[in-house]
């Protein structure tokens, strides 16, 4: 993932997002070593050094995106859940209420109609299979 025309800061942002999504996927607090292993490519070779992972985790903790607790000599990190999905519900309510607020968000994917759904499955070569 080389991004030629952007400053290195964006690279750091992408690493943070990758680490954050690993922690969300895990569903339990992870140690830096576990995060490093999960981030490893299919060959099993670590993509990031241990110290890089620790740096990213500390930075995310400083940004209050992660909480951590000490276990033995290392910390275990978990993503900070917003209060029981409060922000999610507030945003969802906002989206459904005001069409103009909807318009200023750039949604990744628009709603699919029934025929669009079949088109997408055909394009992806899914046949009628469930996405997975």
């Amino acid at each position: 993932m080389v991004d030629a025309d952007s400053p290195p800061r964006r690279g750091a942002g992408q690493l943070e997002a990758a680490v954050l999504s690993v922690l969300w996927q895990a569903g339990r607090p992870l140690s830096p070593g576990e995060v490093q292993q999960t981030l490893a490519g299919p060959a099993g070779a670590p993509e990031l050094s241990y110290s890089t992972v620790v740096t990213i985790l500390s930075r995310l903790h400083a940004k209050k995106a992660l909480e951590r607790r000490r276990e033995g000599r290392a910390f275990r990190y978990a993503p900070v859940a917003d209060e029981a999905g409060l922000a999610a519900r507030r945003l969802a309510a906002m989206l459904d209420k005001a069409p103009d607020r909807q318009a200023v968000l750039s949604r990744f994917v628009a709603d699919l109609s029934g025929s669009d759904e079949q088109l997408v499955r055909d394009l992806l070569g899914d046949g009628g299979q469930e996405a997975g």
Partner: protein
Amino acid sequence: MSLAVYLPLALPAVLAPLAGPLAARLDPVHATWLLTGAAVALAACSTLALGLLAAAAAVRIPLVASLGHWSLAVLGPDNPAGLAVALVAGILLAVAALTVTGFGIRRYRALAGAYREARCLPGRGQTVVLADEAADAYALPGRPGRIVVTAGMLSALDRPGRAALLAHERAHLAGFHYLFTTAARLAATANPLLRPVDRAVGYTVERWADERAATVVGDRRLVAHAIGRAALAAKANRPRREVPGALGAVFSGTGVRAHTRAGPVPRRVAALLAPPPPRRLVLLVAVAALVALAGVCALLAANDLQDLLSLAHHHHH
């Protein structure tokens, strides 16, 4: 009033049916700039033309003429057809002024709300993950803008897919795409003939972000699959938000053209599975010429009226 004043009114109707095909064929960055610029310029020219038509009749009202120190003898009486046209133009102008004002207020509130949300979301990182099982992801404009992804969306995508999603949303924020869509919507509010152009801009900014994501992750096919997976996952847990079907969508198995009547998601997927769009300068020049023609005609008409008024002013004694 010369015939030049009517051309800026007709040209939006010429551009409207071309907007969809242009959006499908042009490089998305070019298409976004071109269609947004054309929509804004044509809306401005057609509004100016309406104003000129209304003003040409208004200055012949004796009270207005005396206030402006214009000689009614020089202005001459307007013909009855001119009066009817002026009345219609005046009504259209008033409606446009009201709808544009309403749109401006609504959009300002929406953007201010988005900025506030972007500031208040938890953490300080660009990406915010919400503990929500429904698959959703969007970019919130703000200072700085934020990317919101639900846990449901993350689990629907594999790691390269997530990278594609984040690159797509970053492209929206980095390119200030909400400014393009707002400008195009403003133009379409001022002149409803431009609505197809507004819809086309909504599509080309998505394509812009898709192609940018493809450059970042280095694989167009991968981005196509991520979009498809995300859309199917979002559909799976949003059954009640079903939109009316794209009627007459026909899937032929090959080519992007078969999908022009399908919704935006299958068209984006198909465009990424096809080769990258070429940069077609001829089409760019053709649309630019159309817009320039509207501008020249509007200015000519404005000049005519100004000349007439200045002549009438000299002879007023």
